[in-house]
């Protein structure tokens, strides 16, 4: 944690310097802090061992093509899965799969992104990047769950919603917004699990629920690291730096209360042992569903809203009426 104190101190010094530029003399204060900073730096072990793994290594792990995908998890966690197709309006989007499943003897509705494992399948699945009709198909499945009181399990693994002309023409933003909104109103328990890449609005479009779980080496980010690098660092190849800056891994997300639990992965990662990974996830989903089913529906919806209402970090400030 020394690192953090150093960063903090450095920021304060910078801030004081700005004040100085405004004509206020704070040099004594600054000097004091700089001395403190020096001491802190000297106290640090020469090569500090990172407590959390490197963010970019995690990104690579989360994208490992041998990782279990949604249909793998379904096969390993569910007793039967009956896939449903189509949004009943335009098309069937294979980048999202939805269906009825038997989970521990109970019927659930599963929705999730689906990547392909080879070129042919990836073309069909569009690398797990959904079009609006994928989200609309998912909404149809969510409404089916609601009609019959089936709990929902949502498995998230997408680089992003597809950035293409057709997606824009059919209002991909609107489809995602609609799903997020409807998931807040859905009158059945919802458990989310980020299993691989949780990319941007494309992930969140299936991502509102009563519990949000995350696999140990999964990532979840507001924009893919390459996108962040291209915009903020003006260089898409700086994705590793962007990933580190955005902090896309499970420990940070747990600390920020964006997720509720980290699901451990076996050995080197989920790709080395699909069975154990799925068993770990299954155990957690089972446990959470059991807890959720005891909560009265109105309270459940209230808690779901409150959970997301609490997300965000800002400072409470002192209010003044005049500008200086």
């Amino acid at each position: 944690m020394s690192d953090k104190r150093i960063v903090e101190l450095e920021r304060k010094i910078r801030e004081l310097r700005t004040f100085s530029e405004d004509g206020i003399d704070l040099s004594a204060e600054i000097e004091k802090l700089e001395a403190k900073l020096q001491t802190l730096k000297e106290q640090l072990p020469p090569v500090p061992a990172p407590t959390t793994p490197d963010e970019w290594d995690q990104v690579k792990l989360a994208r490992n093509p041998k990782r279990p995908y949604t249909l793998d998890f379904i096969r390993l966690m569910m007793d039967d899965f009956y896939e449903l197709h189509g949004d009943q309006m335009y098309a069937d989007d294979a980048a999202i799969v939805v269906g009825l499943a038997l989970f521990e003897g109970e019927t659930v509705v599963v929705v999730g992104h689906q990547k392909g494992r080879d070129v042919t399948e990836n073309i069909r699945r569009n690398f797990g990047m959904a079009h609006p009709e994928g989200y609309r198909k998912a909404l149809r499945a969510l409404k089916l769950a609601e009609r019959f009181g089936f709990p929902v399990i949502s498995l998230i693994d997408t680089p992003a919603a597809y950035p293409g002309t057709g997606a824009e023409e059919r209002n991909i933003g609107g489809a995602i917004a609609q799903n997020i909104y409807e998931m807040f109103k859905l009158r059945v328990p919802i458990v989310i699990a980020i299993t691989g890449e949780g990319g941007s609005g494309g992930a969140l479009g299936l991502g509102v629920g009563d519990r949000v779980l995350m696999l140990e080496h999964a990532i979840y980010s507001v924009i893919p690291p390459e996108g962040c690098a291209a915009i903020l660092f003006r260089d898409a190849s700086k994705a590793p730096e962007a990933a580190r800056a955005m902090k896309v891994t499970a420990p940070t997300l747990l600390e920020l209360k964006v997720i509720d639990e980290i699901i451990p992965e076996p050995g080197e990662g989920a790709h080395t042992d699909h069975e154990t990974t799925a068993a770990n996830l299954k155990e957690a989903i089972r446990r959470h569903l059991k807890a959720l089913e005891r909560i009265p529906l109105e309270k459940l919806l209230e808690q779901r809203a409150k959970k997301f209402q609490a997300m965000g970090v800002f400072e409470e400030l002192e209010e003044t009426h005049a500008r200086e």
Partner: protein
Amino acid sequence: MAIFKRKYFKLSLDQPTGKDDETLWMKCKACGELVFKKRVRENNNICPKCGEYFFLTAPERIQMLVDPGTFEDISKPIGAADPLDFADQGGVPYLDKVKKAQEETGLSNEIIVGKASLNEVSVILAVMDFRFIGGSMGSVMGEQLCHAMRVAADERRPFILVSSTGGARMQEGILSLMQMAKTLSARQWLEAAGVPFISVMTYPTTGGVQASIANVGDITLAEKGALIGFAGRRVIQQTIKQTLPEDFQTDKFAYEHGFVDRVLKREGLRQELSRILRFFAGISRQRREPMALRILNSGRSHER
């Protein structure tokens, strides 16, 4: 160390905002003519010679929409934090960027929320300012929007959102993504209270805001010249490896593809909002309870 405690300034439309610029004339970038600045300002920031729309700051937008003297800033006194210790390429820390934006705009944050009268109808207004780090949505905007919707629901006043934003604030990482969900969870309050929500999309309304709160209005309007879409042009062009049609993600595009109810000229916006509000004037004396309220009120006794 009270000296580090940042202060929060609420917006007053009587005070000048931003850096004052002393020149009286400006050159229109569209027609190249020299135009008198005061004339431009009086003309809703539209070039009096050629009709080009110049950029509107949030205070200008509010001034354009509300009855003079009726605006009251209701924002919460909160400021951006930097939970990720984020620094961009140049090593500029996030909070420095925020501070710079505050200085340049004279605003405390990227969105202004307030109460006002619009042609004598009392409303809650939320207006984004694109100058403030691209009007991007981070934790502060999310909280201010939820607060505004809470007040609108509690006081049963129509809620009007004017978006001008590039999307999520990447510097807050995942928390900025979560603001999409946070604001949508608050949108329920409006529905439950039977309070109308009019969303106005201006140039630009993109990314995470277009894929959340801006896209779930009861009525959705686009200002002429708006840019409306989820993914950025550049990203799409790189993905599909084709040049995009000229009208891609324009106001016309959004209208033709059925995303927005109407495209409005800036000068007609105030009148149009006022006209829409008339239809909702009877909300509080409506005989039939709005749907959502009924659902929220029910249920409790129907658990097994």
